[in-house]
């Protein structure tokens, strides 16, 4: 018999269990509760924080509590989307960890009855010169590619940042988005007594047992011995499972569906029971197994991939089994929905688990951690005023920024991803925002994935809001209205007061941004304990923002300068180097206080950007992000294959003006005939003419940077990550 500590429980949690049951739990029950009450499954440290996030809105069909969120995208269709982390597995087994991260999030979307149409990935890698970074980053990228390409869901964009804090603890966040008709939406809350519990997909094996518990502790040297906790992915089976589930959906044969992710059969079945307010009986001896001699607790906690739990009407089972057989998938009745609240597991006729479903799913005591603000003020005190440099410095700085791994071209990553399958990708990876055609209703979706860990480390509230606002701005500049968001909160242990403070403040910033900009956070996940003996990760909220462009379609691409286009900068001139790429690359450390979140400015920007796109008053738009104005202009020039003459002289503009970040700002390229209408549209908002497109070099006053030189710098790839030939 194991004790509660071996099951991963705290004493207080164990005592809660004993009180609720009126007896000691047996070993299988203890193991189940240990995993289901782990941080990964229970969100016990963050529930109170997550409750503060806005998740309601006219367009929201489904929010937190379902497998993913769904927002209305018009004409009876919804976009189902969610981002999820798979950090610990990717740190230990990069290829499989990343692959199964992609597979898991795709199943979450299928579980709602949606067809997955796009994925994105958030990648956070360590110092490029660290010995592990090359193998971790290439393994993770290959894993995303290997799985996503085979399963036929295009990877249409993402975000990649490098910082030494991720050297031992890389992050892999995967976002998936699917399309569903309103009447086809499948819930996990609608099971009724008498219905059958069915498992569909792969057989259950010993892989990934208790992976959720593994994800809820800090990484240690022992983690490398945790390989049995790593799941193995099979995208071929996932593809078959996708088509089978969608066929079952079309034939109306599914009552409820839930992906078997963390804690496998146990979490999927008990969650359906608890959310539907019913009981459930599962016969473990009916589960198709791939390993011999598996113990009930191993079956309970196996995280074998590519499995779905379905609730079906008894009279529909035969039809369902025929469809499963056609797709070559295992399918078995493993239990029944019952009256009441009892979650029972039988093993060859013997009752081995009998727990209230609500106890497993809802009653994990919330963990409250002490919170204490670190000393931010000393970092906020400016050490030196913003520097003005002579013109050779400006050239050197811009080239160094373009060459830095976080800002450099990422085609070595995204060329490995099939970004076009399903033929809906209008703008794919490499652009600030990805655009997808929605064939079903003629509209378009814009998705941006953003994160600003450095600003979060200096001011978590402002950094959290900025991370979110950056995505809202990016979709707005393309012409979309942000209609929903998903967040992955990647943080170190919450048990240290300063770290819990940081987490709480980032969430407060996200909540403020979502509320002020009326963009509900409809799904997400939390990954804590991202630290190892060598340190902790930066606070890393990753936010996926989904925007809608309604027909008749009108949008503005990026990197589309035409000769003679007038270039405009909209947004305030002032910005900040605090937490910027400039500080990282040039100073080697970040300091200062990032720009405050200004909801009024953000809303005005969003409104005007939208008008600009509806009236198609610009050829090209790019929001100012990492590296500020100078890098935005350089990226526009490179993507357009064209230079510009800019009335921005480095001798009169300091580095803050050139490289500062934060706040709603964008550069637009406007055709001559649209100049008057463009200026009229932006009247009342800071808007200035900064130059004209054309030529083979980017000319900042007297400083001229040939496009070839910019391209050479931007296309440099981190050590050893380039092509092998």
């Amino acid at each position: 018999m194991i004790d509660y500590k071996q099951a991963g429980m705290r004493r207080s949690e164990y005592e809660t269990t004993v009180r609720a049951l009126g007896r000691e739990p047996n070993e299988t029950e203890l193991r189940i509760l240990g995993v289901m009450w782990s941080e990964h499954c229970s969100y016990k440290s963050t529930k109170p924080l997550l409750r503060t996030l806005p998740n309601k809105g006219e367009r929201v069909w489904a929010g937190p509590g379902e497998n993913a969120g769904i927002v209305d995208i018009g004409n009876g269709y919804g976009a189902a989307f969610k981002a999820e982390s798979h950090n610990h597995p990717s740190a230990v087994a990069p290829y499989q960890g990343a692959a199964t991260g992609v597979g898991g999030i795709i199943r979450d979307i299928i579980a709602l009855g949606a067809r997955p149409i796009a994925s994105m990935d958030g990648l956070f890698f360590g110092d490029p010169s660290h010995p592990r970074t090359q193998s971790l980053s290439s393994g993770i990228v290959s894993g995303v590619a290997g799985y996503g390409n085979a399963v036929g869901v295009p990877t249409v964009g993402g975000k990649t940042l490098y910082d030494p804090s991720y050297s031992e603890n890389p992050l892999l966040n995967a976002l998936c988005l699917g399309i569903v008709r309103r009447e086809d939406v499948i819930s996990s809350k609608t099971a009724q007594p008498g219905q059958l519990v069915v498992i569909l997909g792969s057989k259950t094996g010993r892989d990934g047992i208790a992976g959720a518990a593994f994800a809820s502790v800090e990484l240690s040297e022992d983690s490398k011995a945790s390989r049995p906790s790593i799941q193995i992915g099979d995208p071929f089976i996932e593809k078959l499972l996708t088509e089978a589930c969608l066929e079952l959906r079309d034939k109306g044969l599914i009552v409820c569906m839930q992906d078997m992710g963390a804690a496998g059969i146990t979490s999927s079945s008990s969650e359906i029971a608890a959310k539907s307010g019913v009981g459930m009986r599962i016969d473990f001896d009916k589960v198709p197994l791939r390993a011999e001699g598996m113990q009930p607790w191993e079956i309970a906690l196996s995280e074998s991939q590519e499995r779905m739990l379905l609730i079906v009407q008894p009279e529909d089972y035969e039809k369902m089994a025929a469809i499963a057989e056609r797709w070559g998938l295992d399918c078995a009745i493993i239990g029944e929905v019952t009256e009441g609240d009892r979650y029972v597991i039988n093993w060859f006729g013997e009752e081995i688990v009998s727990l209230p479903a609500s106890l497993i799913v809802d009653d994990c005591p919330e963990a409250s951690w002490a919170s204490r603000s670190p000393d931010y003020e000393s970092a906020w005190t400016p050490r030196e005023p913003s520097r003005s440099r002579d013109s050779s410095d400006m050239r050197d700085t811009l080239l160094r920024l373009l060459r830095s791994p976080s800002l450099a071209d990422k085609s070595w990553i995204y060329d490995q991803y099939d970004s076009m399958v399903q033929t809906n990708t209008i703008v794919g990876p490499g652009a600030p925002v990805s655009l997808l055609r929605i064939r079903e209703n003629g509209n378009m979706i814009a998705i941006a994935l953003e994160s600003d860990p450095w600003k979060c480390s200096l001011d978590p509230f402002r950094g959290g809001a900025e991370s979110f606002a950056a995505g809202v701005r990016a979709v707005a500049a393309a012409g979309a209205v942000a209609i929903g968001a998903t967040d992955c909160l990647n943080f170190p242990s919450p048990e240290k007061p300063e770290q819990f403070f940081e987490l709480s403040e980032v969430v407060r910033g996200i909540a403020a941004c979502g509320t002020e900009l009326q963009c509900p956070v409809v799904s997400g996940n939390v990954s804590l304990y991202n630290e190892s003996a060598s340190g902790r990760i930066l606070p890393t909220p990753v936010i996926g923002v989904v925007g809608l462009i309604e027909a008749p379609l009108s949008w503005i691409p990026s990197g589309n300068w035409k000769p003679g286009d007038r270039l405009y900068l909209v947004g305030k001139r002032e910005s900040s180097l605090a937490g910027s790429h400039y500080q990282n690359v040039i100073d080697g450390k970040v300091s200062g206080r990032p720009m405050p979140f200004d909801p009024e400015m953000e809303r005005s920007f969003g409104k005007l950007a939208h008008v600009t796109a509806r009236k198609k008053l610009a050829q090209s738009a790019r929001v100012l992000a990492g590296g500020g104005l100078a890098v935005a202009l350089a990226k526009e020039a490179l993507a357009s294959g064209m230079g510009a003459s800019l009335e921005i002289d480095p001798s009169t503009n300091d580095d803050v003006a050139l490289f500062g970040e934060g706040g709603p700002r964008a550069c637009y390229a406007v055709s001559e005939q649209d100049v008057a209408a463009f200026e009229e549209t932006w009247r009342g908002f800071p808007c200035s003419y900064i130059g004209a497109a054309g030529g083979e070099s980017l000319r900042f006053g007297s400083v001229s940077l040939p496009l070839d030189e910019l391209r050479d710098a931007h296309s440099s790839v981190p050590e050893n990550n380039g092509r092998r030939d």
Partner: protein
Amino acid sequence: MQASIIVFPGSNCDRDVGHGLRSALGTEADFVWHTQTELPPGTDLVVLPGGFSYGDYLRCGAMAARSPIMGAVSRHAASGGLVLGICNGFQVLTESRLLPGALLANRTLRFICRPCTIRVERTDTPFTRTFREKQILHFPIAHYEGLYFLPGNELLALEKRRQVVFRYASTDGVADDSSNPNGALNNIAGIVNERGNVLGLMPHPERARDMLLGDASGAHADGTDFWKGIRDWADGRLGQ
């Protein structure tokens, strides 16, 4: 023209080809499950779509080449019917010996997905009659095993018989190492059988059909011409 798209377990471009045919020609293709042993009556064109048939396990295309439907596909080809294999479908065609050679791992040992340009080498096949000699087409690629290989003598013979239909080339028509994305011998992107009625190519015409797709400045719709050309041939409008 009646088209039949073969669906193997793991095919993932079948729906894209169906959509391409629908939007370019306004025709509905038949989707034929791999366990069938006969093609729908009246089939003019068989398409083996891209994807990862059988997960690409064992060897790309190897298991699909032994699917029940492939007997009917071979008979269709033998009777002069059109067979088109795209990407994984090309691999299935070489594995089933309907086309010579093999597709090996890209020389970068990486999956490559990107826009790509190919040069039309022959306009006297049923698949290329609407194109001009040496015309440059924009068809994207997305594959891990796309390096076309054939032993030296056989490659010479293949070239001599003019079986090479498409070659990777730059936008100004130069087929050299720098315009070769995957290391394919002689920059080969697509070949036909000796009779000219079976075409395999690695690039994806069904992804080059819609001006909306691709970045705003580089969108191309050469795929539409490709499908129309095949339709015209099949419907006898251009004769043989």
